[in-house]
């Protein structure tokens, strides 16, 4: 297997998932609107107290992002499993690691990138400063791929199970805790006027770790689930 064709297979995998998502764009929009509504409910519920809103903003945005990405997780492999295309994907002549990586990347582009884009707009409701909004976007950019990567392990493990959605949440949400802590930490640091860089570096390190190990664990889980 020469490498140009491996690259082309990888590209086509991503293109396939993006095309499928485009054909079912209601699913994607539903996740995005869920995120928007959850984040918007807090300022409405708490009332216009700028100091309080500024304090809770990092936690609210990140928790909403976690919950929104939970909604999208079931779709990562669920549809492919049901129509038999997952078996075909397992039998493609490229390493399963790359197939999984392509699928996770597509899932991130489809379900997480829109959240990252609207997050600064939502942050305005909380009266966050421009610098804080900027750091929030960077922390989401670094953190959301980790959510997709770790989430894919849970999604693969619970394939074909009843109550898979609840089970995924129980499996995966505890693993999201480091991302939540580092992500909110970075935003809080700018609110309180300290340096957010250590948190961002930690998020980056988590991303590198997740990139190295999660697709591998997901591959193993997929083989078990399909058997």
């Amino acid at each position, binding site marked *: 297997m020469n490498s140009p064709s491996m690259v082309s297979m990888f590209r086509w995998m991503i293109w396939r998932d993006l*095309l499928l998502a485009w054909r079912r764009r209601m699913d994607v929009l539903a996740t995005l609107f869920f995120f928007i509504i959850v984040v918007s409910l807090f300022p409405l519920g708490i009332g216009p107290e700028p100091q309080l809103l500024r304090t809770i903003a990092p936690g609210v945005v990140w928790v909403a992002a976690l919950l929104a990405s939970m909604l999208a997780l079931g779709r990562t492999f669920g549809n492919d499993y049901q129509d038999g295309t997952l078996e075909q994907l397992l039998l493609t002549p*490229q390493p399963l690691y790359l197939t999984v990586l392509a699928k996770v990347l597509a899932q991130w582009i489809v379900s997480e990138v829109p959240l990252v884009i609207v997050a600064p707009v939502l942050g305005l409701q909380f009266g966050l400063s421009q610098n804080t909004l900027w750091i929030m976007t960077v922390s989401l950019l670094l953190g959301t791929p980790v959510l997709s990567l770790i989430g894919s392990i849970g999604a693969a493990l619970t394939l074909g199970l009843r109550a898979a959605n609840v089970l995924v949440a129980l499996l995966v949400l505890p693993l999201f805790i480091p991302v939540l802590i580092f992500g909110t930490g970075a935003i809080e640091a700018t609110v309180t006027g300290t340096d957010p860089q250590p948190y961002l570096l930690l998020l980056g390190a988590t991303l590198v770790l997740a990139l190295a190990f999660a697709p591998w664990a997901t591959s193993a889980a997929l083989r078990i689930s399909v058997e």
Partner: protein
Amino acid sequence: MLEAINLGCIRGDRRLFRDLNFKLEAGHLLELRGRNGGGKTSLLRILCGLATPAEGEVRWNGKNIRRLREEYFASLSYVAHLNGLKDELTALENLLVAERISGHQQTRQQAGDTLSRVGLANQRHLPARFLSAGQRRRLALARLLASDSSLWILDEIVTSLDDSGVNLARDLITDHVKSGGIAIVATHQKLNLSVANSQVINLSSEEGKILFAIPADQFA
């Protein structure tokens, strides 16, 4: 060359088969027969490398397929019970995407020709969810036709196909085997394939015994 060595399979607490041996070389055809629940699909999934056998191993050109993996998958095409089609994609897109993610170069022109050969010329731009069960099966056949795999593993390939579809499947398999390919076909109806090197394994397991199997060496 595909070899099965002392294969055994247990599903749940039921033994489906044990000590299954056969050897298929280029230009060979293996027909799997047996009643429903006899273990045909389980055996096919083991031969694909999707399932692990309880005992024994499968070898491709002398090497265990579990070690070869991608190298083995490159020469394998599997048509399962489920057609593996995406409802949201058109017939043409389904074929193109399936071939390209398997590493086969395939132009739109070629894919269109392949669709014409399986009788889906007028449906090429129709989303797969509007195709009938038989047309979906034909689309799965198109995938086989478009690939250059040497090993075909086919599970109940003629299900929901009409007479001309059955003839098409029969011709495809015969051509493939005659041109030096290997085909393993599970079916509960007679396909009447006219192939010189053909073996039959009947997986009518009762209490885990294979009642009737023709080993490869009798045909050699």
